[in-house]
């Protein structure tokens, strides 16, 4: 995409029928660090790569809880993402107050999309520079939506956004057909694998990624670093019998000794007989 005379204003069409400002906003999403989402009939998993600017700084928060039954992962201008999350939380809470019922995700994404569309049609505004992966539960099951700066939204079985998301998408394209019937744990495993794909060789550690789950009977929550590290160990080291630990939220498949205080720092931990 190169500079041209039609790209200064969001209210200027190009002769080819494009709104360049909107497309540039979508570029901003592609530059952000990766975020992926996948869903089964009953659960949604959101995961993202958290790159800190330096060793000294903290990670940027990219996954937000919007309500017990809705969560969002963002990629792009995180400041815009924060503002939109606040809007979503506000909408959810107002609906809950009036109707004593959770806001259906489908309606929330439409409201979000309409808000984004407004910014593409006013000369004194700019499009939001953030893509949102909204995962939520409603009467008809678990849903995953992607909201674009253009004001479009789509429902997905699985999706990835941000830098090097194509690698994750390729992985997801291979596996997505089985997702609908996946168990919660398999879904999390696939999410971690997809995140690994976006790292292009860099080591997957719980310190650089965040995973969040929500499902039927399970309110939205972000898994803590320990649990994520344990899951990484479980699924990645195939040669050793990984020290399987009990997960915080879900029922454990294996018997496990009680978890240590410190997460297993080195991956060469001695295999334990179960």
């Amino acid at each position, binding site marked *: 995409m190169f500079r041209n005379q039609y790209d200064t204003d969001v209210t200027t069409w190009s002769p080819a029928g494009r709104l360049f400002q909107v497309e540039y906003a979508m570029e901003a999403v592609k530059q952000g660090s990766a975020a992926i989402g996948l869903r089964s009939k009953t659960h949604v998993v959101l995961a993202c790569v958290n790159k800190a600017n330096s060793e000294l700084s903290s990670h940027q928060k990219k996954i937000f809880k919007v309500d017990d039954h809705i969560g969002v992962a963002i990629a792009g201008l995180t400041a815009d993402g924060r503002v939109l999350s606040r809007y979503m939380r506000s909408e959810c809470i107002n609906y809950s107050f*009036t*109707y*004593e*019922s959770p806001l259906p995700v*489908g*309606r929330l994404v*439409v409201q979000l999309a309409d808000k984004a569309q407004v910014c593409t049609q006013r000369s004194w505004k700019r499009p939001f520079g953030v893509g949102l992966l909204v995962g939520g539960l409603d*009467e008809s099951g678990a849903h995953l939506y992607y909201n674009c700066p253009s004001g479009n939204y789509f429902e997905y079985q699985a999706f990835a956004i941000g830098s090097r998301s194509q690698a994750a998408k390729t992985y997801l394209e291979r596996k997505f057909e089985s997702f609908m019937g996946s168990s919660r744990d398999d879904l999390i495993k696939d999410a971690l694998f997809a995140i690994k794909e976006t790292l292009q060789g860099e080591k997957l550690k719980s310190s650089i990624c965040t995973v969040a789950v929500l499902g039927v009977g399970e309110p939205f929550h972000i898994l803590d670093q320990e649990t994520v590290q344990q899951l990484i160990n479980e699924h990645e080291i195939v040669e050793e019998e990984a020290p399987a630990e009990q997960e915080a939220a879900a029922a454990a498949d294996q018997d496990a000794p009680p978890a240590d205080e410190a997460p297993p720092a080195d991956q060469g931990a001695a295999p334990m007989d179960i």
Partner: protein
Amino acid sequence: YPYVTGTSVVGVKYKDGILMASDMGASYGSTLRYKSVERMKPIGKHSLLGASGEISDFQEILRYLDELILYDNMWDDGNSLGPKEVHSYLTRVMYNRRNKFNPLWNSLVLGGVKNGKKYLGTVSMIGVHFEDNHVATGFGNHLARPILREEWREDLSYEDGVKLLEKCMRVLLYRDRSAVNKIQIAKITEEGVSISKPYSLRTFWEFNAFRNPTVGAEGSW
């Protein structure tokens, strides 16, 4: 202050859903002015609303709910407002009006079934709201609820439920001066809402107590 008012509404949960009864009278003060007023109306696919109190305010509430259901349908997304949501919405409306010192002068009974779950609740004009297995408004609170407390059971059959409601309505007919002998019984189940055609209750006025009311207390009337 209310001008044209309806009297009690009684509602019970039964095996397949909710049964609600009300008479068809609307009084103008002490005059039994209108005798064919439907005080129960279906709301959306899943709920039924019955009201006592000012009839014009009831009609206003129906307009609000009409708009609410319309927008709900316009989403066209497989989600629909169930009785719990409608009840909550009405509570907010009633409470807000009360806070502005301009209440909608009604006591509402909201019943419905959604996804197999039965819901029966009530909202008063000051925003007091709660759910229960049996509710009543107005005089029904004093005359019908004691009967229901004794005789209501879980999983009433349709016939038993109707008999129970008729018993309550009969007592109300005898003892409530603003009651008229033309009632409707409404039934809501998972399949939908149906309101019966109006009919009259059989009454018996030959009780000794009625023929000779002052036998125990000379000088009274």
